[in-house]
């Protein structure tokens, strides 16, 4: 995967012309990964909190 786009000038020298557009999908992917990981983390945390609350209620009633 290239990070940059380059071109050659009339003297054969490489010139930077910008970031590689392949990176577009990496940045979109990074956003998607963050969203999925956060959603999973939030869901698991909520599940654990409910389980603890349920265990606390059961402990109090016995």
């Amino acid at each position, binding site marked *: 995967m290239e990070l*940059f786009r380059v071109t050659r*000038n009339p003297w054969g020298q490489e*010139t*930077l*012309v*910008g*970031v590689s*557009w392949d*990176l*577009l999908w990496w*940045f*979109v992917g*990074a*956003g*998607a990964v*963050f*969203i999925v990981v*956060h959603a999973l983390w*939030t869901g698991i*945390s909520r599940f*654990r909190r409910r389980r603890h609350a349920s265990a606390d209620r059961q402990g109090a009633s016995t």
Partner: protein
Amino acid sequence: MTSVDRSHTRPDGGVSSGRLIRHTGIDRLYHWCMAAAVVTLLATGFLPVVGVKFGWVEPHWIAGSVLAVLVLVHIVRASFFQDIWAMVVVPTDVRDAWRELRHAFGRGGPAPGKPGKYELLQKLYHAGAALVVLSAIVTGGMMMVKIDTPFWKRNPYWLSDSTWGVVYVVHGFAALATLTLLMIHVYFAIRPEKLWMTRSMIVGWITRDEYTEHHDSARWTADPADSGRRS
């Protein structure tokens, strides 16, 4: 979470709606104009990259100019007419985030305090967004020297090719990072437990219950929505 909208008696004897101002009209207008400008910039910048060909240069520089003016107004307003410290990371934020993390992993310890108007992650997001948006604006402004506008004729020889390359790279990375940040921003805006904040960015107010549940009144004092004063 309950969000019962209770009424309260004001000091002048009138009955308050129980709603508190989180974002004033001018701030909401700024936010949505900025959103429109950023979406226009991302669409005109990236759609041609994925194969949708159209005359993107003119709407792109116009949206960029609008964004630059909006950000300039925001900087002046935040610096001189608002509480800029509401958005600055302070040691209390870091301490509370650490305590929050410990509780999340079941480690116990002191309970984390409530934030002021913004919590640590919102402040960090704002700092990141400010960095990438300002980078995009500065480099975009430089690139406008290379296009014809109603105000000047293009001058492609202002900088050397290698310097222009650096400018393009910074602009490109800033644009890509903006796309990621926008995805994350919209994700949080539509999460069920954050909808009260999203609503406040549309209508301006939060309920007193939401204020009590999510904010430390010692760190952020919100004005009643019907007080006529600005938050």
